[in-house]
């Protein structure tokens, strides 16, 4: 198999003593301190900030639209454009999950799914949100592009049983996703 060797950057002595990076970090802090003392905190207007600094009134106001593309929130299961369940319950996510949050019960695909070629689908798919560490390994390992980390970060529950999300919940949260590879076509 063709392996790709990753080239790691070589560190100079200056990098290794990291004092420069420390000073750089302190400068950012200082910049914000000066800005807030001058009453020029970023997004002050958005938050109706008064006087020194600004405070975001969460949860009435949120920064959801400013979240980066790569934000790792709760994992969800997705359907393809054709509405097909993408997960084939290969259990690689269960295997890779470092927190053992995922439990998959494999089974035959249901006759009404419309894609008998796929043969296999999860009978139950559970993610324990108390165990999940949002590392995104499940998304990375998935050979079927079926599990994706959403931007959902408000995960609260009243007891431990509610913390386990079942297949139905995960598909509801995941919705459909466009532009995925349709592997189970007639040419496969």
């Amino acid at each position: 198999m063709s392996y790709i060797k990753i080239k790691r950057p070589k560190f100079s002595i200056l990098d290794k003593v990291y004092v420069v990076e420390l000073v750089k970090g302190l400068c950012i802090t200082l910049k914000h301190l000066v800005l807030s003392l001058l009453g020029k905190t970023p997004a002050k207007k958005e938050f109706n900030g008064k006087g020194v600094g600004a405070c975001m009134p969460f949860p009435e106001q949120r920064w959801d639209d400013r979240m980066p593309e790569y934000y790792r929130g709760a994992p969800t299961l997705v359907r393809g454009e054709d509405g097909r369940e993408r997960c084939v319950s290969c259990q690689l996510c269960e295997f890779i999950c470092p927190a053992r949050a995922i439990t998959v019960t494999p089974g035959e695909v249901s006759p009404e799914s419309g894609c008998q070629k796929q043969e296999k689908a999860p009978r139950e798919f559970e993610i324990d949100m108390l165990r999940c560490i949002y590392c995104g390994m499940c998304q990375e390992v998935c050979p079927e592009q079926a599990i994706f980390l959403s931007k959902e970060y408000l995960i609260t529950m009243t007891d431990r049983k509610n913390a386990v999300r079942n297949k139905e919940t995960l598909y509801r949260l995941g919705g459909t996703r466009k532009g995925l590879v349709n592997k189970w076509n007639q040419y496969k």
Partner: protein
Amino acid sequence: MSSIPAILPKDAAAAEGKVNVQINGTWYRFPKGTRIVDACNSVGAHVPTFCYHPKLSIVGSCRMCLVEQGMPPRLAPGAAPTYDENGYQPISWMPRAVIACANTVGENMGIRTNSKMTEEARKGVLEFLLTNHPLDCPICDQAGECKLQEYTADYGRGTHRFTEAKTKKGKNLSIGPRVNLDQERCVLCRRCVRFMKEIVGEEVLGVVNRGTHNAISCYPGTTLDSNYSMNTVDLCPVGALTSKDFRFRMRVWFLKSTPTIDVNCGTGTNINIWTRESKVYRITPRQNDEVNSCWMPDSHRLNYKYINAPERILTPLVKTDTKAPQRPATWDSALNLVVEQLHKCAPTETAIVASARMTNEELYMVRALARQLGITKLDIVSRKGAGDNMLVSEDRNPNTNGVKMILGKTGTGLNAIRRGVRNGTVRFVIALGEDLTSPEAGFTKEDLEGLDYLLTIHHSENETTRMSDVVLPGVTFAEKYGTMINVAGRIQRLNKAIEPMGEAHSDWAIFRDVSERLGCDCVKVIACPTPMMVLEEMAQEFEPMKGLTWGNIGNEGKVILNTGVTIPLIERTKAKN
């Protein structure tokens, strides 16, 4: 010129009936007639194979085992061979690769399994095998133990050069009651075809169509319904033949395999139990050339469902009054109650029905218990069935020879116990690991109702446990250590694959605890912490077991008795070689 040894290696090897072979630059000696693939594998130079199987005939159809090979140069007429300082002739390497499975080693042969040519040959073969192979790994049950997957990791290109559409064949075809066929995944090694023809003797499978449309299929009007059909699933190096029972149950990389033995008949087939956490998912045969070769019957393979069934008894059950319903109890109170009740039973009116499904260690403890109580009415339930002239023995009990050796019983005394129960001379019965209402035991429900006291030790709920005054939960064969002696007199080990369900205890430990509470003062019995220690005690007492320890029995077992019984399939295999 360098000196040549006085005795040439070829002569020294010929005196032992061997030949000198150079593998990857090192010289080895192998017996004449050894296959190149076996020779290479035995010295750690792994040769990838699909179609080769040591128990089947050679077809050389997959071409995966190509290696570079060379022989001494053919001499011109009158020329004398030259030898180097170690006495070997120079090797002239052949410009093409040869298959390692269909060729045997020869004197002064050279083999390279790690050369550029070998590597390129394997890469080429693998690329052809993959041209039509579907991308089914995520849904294929073989993934994780698939030869094609492994070799693709070693020799695959990572990208596909074959841009044409893949050949379409049948998928998810049912070719038998227990086996599914996926023709697209097949690499046409024909192991299954040869197995059915050579080992089972039923020519059910064959290859149909030509060229790229080649496919495994059943002959018209037949199905793969032999009792040995699931061995084709084990044989299949890819996921073409898959088990219906194991289909989509669990990925194999989650499973832990434990080497142990089968308990469905006297053959004592060597098996691996595949478990995850406390659940058994499948059973596969384990190679033992003296017991079961590489095979096992489907009927035995699929008889594991009772281990995780809801009928399992998880706690001790006691009846506080004759007519009261059973209720769960703690071990301590249940054992105390048992001891109290056993003290009330007159030994002459008490009978023990033991089981030949118990291990030797358990039987030894049963004997100690019987002696402690002074009970002489003791026997087992014998089970006979038709042998299939393959691996299924006529004796359907796995440890009849152990019972014979330890208790000295053969099941003939059961009739007397049954008569005693019916005419009232036996009023108390201790049933150990047997359902007395089963047809083999022959007791009726009325017989059991007439008893004054019935104590049962069993792993699952049945008619007998429902009528018992006290039920102590034992364990199944997957949950305990122990030894059994098969029909051919071979002692073999049972290994614990999973922890006992619920609060169940190993049967031997239950007998030990009961004996101890009954006031047994024999240190050998009450102080035993493990079944391995029981085995050592037995090794001192029984002549055939002399010198046996848990360690030296090994995974293959040891012949300790000469019973004169043979296993038909093994005899046939030996006769063939």
